[in-house]
C-alpha cells in the first residue's frame, strides 16, 4: 500500500517534470528559429545597405549597383493616400465605438465586424480595390494601391483607437461633465486629447502593418522601375520590389531585397516598441 502511494507520487512528479521540459523545449523551438530569422535578416540587410540604396533607382537587370529610391518614394506616396483615407475614418469610428455608442447593440456589431474584417486576407482587399478603381479607370495606378491599403487601415485604426480611449479613466470624463461641459466637447477635448499619444501610436502601428503589405498592391499599384509621382500611373513600392527581387536570378537584386527588408523591419520595430512604451506608461494607467 505504502509502496503504491510512493510509486504514484513518483510518477506524478515525473509527469510534471516531463511537461515542464516539453514546455521549455517548445519555447526554445519557437524562439530559436524566430531569432534566427531576425539575426539573419539584420546581418544580410546591414551588409547590403548603403547610401545608393536610398538615392539611386534600380539599374537595368544584370547590372550591379543601383538602389530602391523609387520604391521608397512610391511606398511613401501609397502610404500617404492610405493614411488620408484610413486614419480619419478609423479614428472617428473608434471614437463612436468607445464614447457615443458604448454598450449599444450597433457598436457591438460594428466591433465584431471590424475584428472579422481584420482577418480577411489582404489579397481580397486588393481585388476589391481592383474592381472599384482599376476597372473604371482602365489602368493600374498609385491611387488604386492607396485605396486598397486605406481600406485595410480602417478596421485596425478603429479598434486601437477604441482600446486607447477605453484606457482613459472614467473620473476624467465625469469631472468634465460635472463642470457642465456638453458631452461632445468633453469627448473631443478631454478624452481624445488624453488618449492622443495612444491613438497616434496606434495609427503608426496600422501604418507599419500596411507598409509591409504586398498582396493588395500586385494588381493595383503594379510596380514601376522608375520614379513616378503621378497618382494616375503605376508606382513602385518597397514590399512589391522585395517580392520581385527575391524571385529574380540576379545576386545583386537579392542584395537589394535584403536591404529593403531591413528598412521595412526597422520601421515596424520602431512602431511596435512605441506602442508598447505608450501603453505600458503610467499616464494612461488606472484605466477602467
Amino acid at each position: 500500500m505504502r509502496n503504491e502511494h510512493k510509486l504514484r507520487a513518483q510518477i506524478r512528479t515525473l509527469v510534471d517534470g516531463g511537461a515542464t521540459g516539453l514546455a521549455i523545449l517548445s519555447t526554445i523551438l519557437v524562439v530559436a528559429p524566430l531569432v534566427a530569422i531576425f539575426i539573419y535578416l539584420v546581418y544580410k540587410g546591414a551588409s547590403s545597405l548603403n547610401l545608393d540604396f536610398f538615392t539611386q533607382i534600380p539599374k537595368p537587370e544584370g547590372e550591379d549597383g543601383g538602389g530602391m529610391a523609387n520604391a521608397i518614394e512610391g511606398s511613401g506616396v501609397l502610404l500617404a493616400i492610405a493614411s488620408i483615407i484610413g486614419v480619419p475614418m478609423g479614428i472617428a469610428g473608434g471614437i463612436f465605438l468607445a464614447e457615443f455608442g458604448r454598450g449599444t447593440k450597433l457598436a457591438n456589431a460594428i466591433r465584431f465586424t471590424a475584428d472579422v474584417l481584420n482577418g480577411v486576407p489582404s489579397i481580397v482587399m486588393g481585388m476589391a480595390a481592383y474592381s472599384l478603381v482599376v476597372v473604371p479607370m482602365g489602368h493600374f495606378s498609385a491611387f488604386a494601391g492607396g485605396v486598397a491599403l486605406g481600406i485595410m487601415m480602417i478596421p485596425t485604426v478603429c479598434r486601437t483607437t477604441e482600446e486607447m480611449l477605453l484606457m482613459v479613466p472614467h473620473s476624467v470624463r465625469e469631472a468634465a461633465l460635472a463642470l457642465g461641459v456638453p458631452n461632445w466637447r468633453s469627448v473631443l477635448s478631454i478624452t481624445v486629447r488624453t488618449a492622443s499619444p495612444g491613438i497616434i501610436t496606434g495609427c503608426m502601428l496600422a501604418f507599419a502593418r500596411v507598409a509591409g503589405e504586398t498582396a493588395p498592391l500586385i494588381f493595383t499599384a503594379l510596380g514601376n522601375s522608375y520614379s513616378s509621382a503621378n497618382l494616375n500611373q503605376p508606382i513602385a513600392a518597397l514590399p512589391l520590389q522585395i517580392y520581385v527581387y527575391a524571385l529574380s536570378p540576379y545576386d545583386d537584386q537579392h542584395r537589394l531585397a535584403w536591404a529593403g527588408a531591413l528598412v521595412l523591419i526597422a520601421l515596424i520595430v520602431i512602431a511596435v516598441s512605441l506602442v508598447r512604451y505608450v501603453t505600458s506608461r503610467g499616464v494612461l494607467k488606472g484605466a477602467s
Partner: protein
Amino acid sequence: MVICALSIFGIVVLIAGELTVHSKLAWSTFGLEFFTKTFQDPYTGQPNYWDPVNSHFSALPFIFGTLLSSILALLMAVPLAVGLAVFLTEMCPGVLRGPLAFITELLAAIPSVIYGLWAVFVLVPLLRDYVNPWLIKMFGWSGLFGSDNPTGLGFVAAGVILAIMILPIISSLTREVMTAVPGSQREAVLALGATRWEMISMGVLRNARIGIVGAIILGLGRALGETMAVTMVIGNTPQIMHSLLANGTTMSSVIANEYAEATSNMHRAALTEIGLALFVVTIIVNAFARLPVWMVTRGAPSATH
C-alpha cells in the same frame, strides 16, 4: 462619427458586392461545378484543372492546396504555440517574460513578404539538402513523401513557413485566455495537492479550452488567406498529388500570380470567384474564432464549472 463607424459594414458589403458582380460570368457558366470538376487532357490523359487558354477552369487544386498547407501548418504550430503559452504564463521567470512576449509580438508584425524572402534563401535550401532526403528515406514507404521533386519547394516548405507565421498569433491569444483564468482556480487545484502540471492541465487549460480552440481557428483563418510567403515557396503548379513534397498552389497564390495578367474576361471572373470563396470562408472562420475567445475573456470563466 456614426457614418465612419458604419463604413466598416460598408466595406464588407462593398467587397462582397464587387466580387459577386465581377465573378458573375464564372458563376453563370460553371455553377457549383466550378469547385468540384476535373477536366481530362485530350493528349496526355492526365487530369487537368486549370487551363486559361482553353477556358478550362476548376478551383479544385487551389482548394486542395489551401486546405493541405493550412492543415500542415496547424499540425506543426498548435503544440508549439500552446507549449509556449503555458511556459510564458505559468513557468517563466519574470525576467524572461517581458522580452519573450515582445519577441512574439514583433514576429506577428513582420510582413509576409519578408518571411517569404527568408524562406526562399534559407528554409528551402535547408529542406532541399537535409530535411527532405531524410523524410524520403524514413517515411518514403508511406507514399506521402515522393522523391520526384528535387527543388525543395512544395507543401512541406509552405507548411513550415505558415506554421512560423501563425505561431505568434495562436500563442499570444492562448496566453491571453490563460491569463483570464482567475488565480483562485489555480490555488484551489494546488491546495488539493496537485503538482504544477496537474494544476495547469486541470485548473487552467480545462477552463481555457474554448478560448484556445478559438485561437487555433483564428490561426487557421490567417493560414487560409496568407498569400506572399506561400506563393514564394509552394511552387505554383495547379495539380493534386498525394506527395507532401510535390509542388502545389493555393487559392490566394493563383490570384497573386495571375490576376494582373488575366488573359480573358472568363479567366478574370474565375479568379474573382476564387477570391469571393476565400472572402466568404475567412469571414466565417474568423467569426467562429472570435466568439469563443470573446466568451472566455469577457465572461467569468469560473462559471463554466
